[in-house]
């Protein structure tokens, strides 16, 4: 293959990464934006989503379409329930103190990781894709499922955006994000909004994992990279900014795809992480965000 098609392939792979990444990062960004806390266990919700997708696929007994649809329903529900439970039992009692929350979510990270290792095992297990169509391009064939992942993520993002900007729930969430105390004074049940947002953030990560797992295999340590990349995306995009998160996910996903194809993946990660740390140091509001009130 010559350079052009190679680049196209890299871009397509980058788009798949970007699609899944923007869903995961959106969850982290929502939680940070509304609740002002950093959820270190976010990557584990992603991992849990993937592991549950494998479980759902094995429940369906070999029919990949039913397994996939089942996973798409039960995996976010279970992950959301776990997130809600930990929010009610732990985070609320810490009064969302940012530092105590980080320590507590590190604890949650270990608990979920160990639970996955004990109950699911150390192996990476594949989940069959719901369909196997190869889209034949002039230079190479490309998996139709991957294109489906891109489309599905894009529609989920649009749906989230519509919920946030067009519905009453979204209005309540934005009001809480804008000014928690005034929102409370206007009768918004801030406490319940917090619980809901935390669960919603985890569910977005779980959906992203269900989508990616036919490509990537489910493994109990798979939460690490999405966590780091989501952090990177959320920071570059500006903490709490939806539009910034999207642009940053595209930027990071594409550049990750391109750099990893032409250079070493470790080097790509190194450069990205360093760049982000420096962005946070010199431009704390992110590249696309505005200064916090």
């Amino acid at each position, binding site marked *: 293959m010559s350079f052009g098609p190679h680049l196209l392939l890299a871009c397509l792979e980058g788009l798949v990464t970007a699609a899944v990444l923007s869903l995961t990062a959106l969850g982290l960004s929502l939680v940070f934006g509304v609740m002002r806390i950093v959820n270190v266990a976010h990557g584990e919700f992603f991992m849990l989503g993937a592991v549950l997708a494998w479980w759902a696929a094995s429940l369906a007994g070999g029919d990949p379409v039913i397994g996939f649809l089942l996973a798409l329903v039960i995996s976010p529900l279970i992950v959301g329930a776990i997130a809600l439970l930990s929010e009610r039992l732990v985070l609320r009692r810490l009064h969302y103190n940012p530092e105590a929350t*980080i320590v507590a979510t590190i604890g949650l990270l*270990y608990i979920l990781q160990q639970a996955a290792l004990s109950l699911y095992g150390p192996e990476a297990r594949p989940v069959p894709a719901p369909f196997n169509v190869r889209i034949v391009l002039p230079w190479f064939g490309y998996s139709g499922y991957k294109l489906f992942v891109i489309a599905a993520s894009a529609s989920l993002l649009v749906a989230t955006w519509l919920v946030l900007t067009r519905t009453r729930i979204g209005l309540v969430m934005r009001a809480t994000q804008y000014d928690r105390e005034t929102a409370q004074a206007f009768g918004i049940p801030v406490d319940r909004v917090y619980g809901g947002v935390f669960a919603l953030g985890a569910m977005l990560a779980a959906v992203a994992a269900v989508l990616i797992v036919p490509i990537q295999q489910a493994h109990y340590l798979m939460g690490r990279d999405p966590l780091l990349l989501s952090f990177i995306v959320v920071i570059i995009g500006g903490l709490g900014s939806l539009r910034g998160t999207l642009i940053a996910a595209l930027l990071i996903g594409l550049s990750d795809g391109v750099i990893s194809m032409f250079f070493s993946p470790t080097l790509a990660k190194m450069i990205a*992480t360093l760049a982000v740390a420096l962005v946070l140091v010199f431009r704390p509001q992110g590249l696309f965000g505005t200064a916090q009130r």
Partner: protein
Amino acid sequence: MSGAKAISLHVAVIILLFALNFLLPEYHHGVLARVMVFAVFAMGYALLFGYAGLLSLGHSMFFAAGMYGAALPVLHLGWSAPLAFVAGIAAGTALSLLIALLALRTTGVAFMIVTMMFAQVFYLAIIYFSPWTRGDEGFALDRQARIVDLGGNLVDLTNPTARYMIALLLFTIALFTMLRVVTSPFGRVLVAIRENEERTRMLGYNTFANKLVAVVVSGTVCAAAGAAYALLFGFAGAGFASVQYSILPLLWSLLGGAATTLGPALGALFMYYLVDITSGYTSAYLLFVGILLMLLVLFFPKGILGTARDRWARWLP
């Protein structure tokens, strides 16, 4: 006087540890030597976290800077152990100064994320430069390099007693340095910054400079622990630079009491045996670590000695 009480307690701890060298069975003797080195790491961390109130999630890079700063010259240049130890500490000081200058521009949550990311870059760099660092699998130090010539006396760092005594010496120096620092005017300023940075600045203190010194002292102590670990136990590996080794000192400090001098060491000892004993029954020791972290932050945010100080012994430093 409360100061005298505190000093006698610290001296008593050192004497107890010295006596244990002759009393402990072989296995626990080795464990305690290792725990003392980790306790130095914990103390370096707690100085920043407990007293200055800066929660770093990247201290594994300082430990690893000390470890590789000492181990790489031994491996590639054939340096002797004392020289390598100094090189490890110097590497830690230089790195902590650089990180402090960058990371201290941020506060709160951003500080945690930035330190975590710098540590991640450091970890990835160790993996990337595998031809020199041997990456994840690490490397063992040559036994010959770990025999030190001290004025004609050969000290073999592979000998358990020598190892224990050197670890104890390092522990003693670190403990009394910490006691000295936290009771000094500088230590008081750090506590003031922790309680209310804005007000401390209004009182005329240069809070940035004080925090800078705190990060550098903390990083240097952690690097000393890393260098000592490499030389005493003869191994350096990328695992020590991973995020887990940034979280462990946080856990040790929280458990024992982050704003106490003896707490981090107590936390390290307690944690080591907790993992040691539970891993005898189950491989799921991370579960205990996770549950412990949550319970601590929920019910004992001040740790064992912090709670003890509030209830019974106001004089604990």
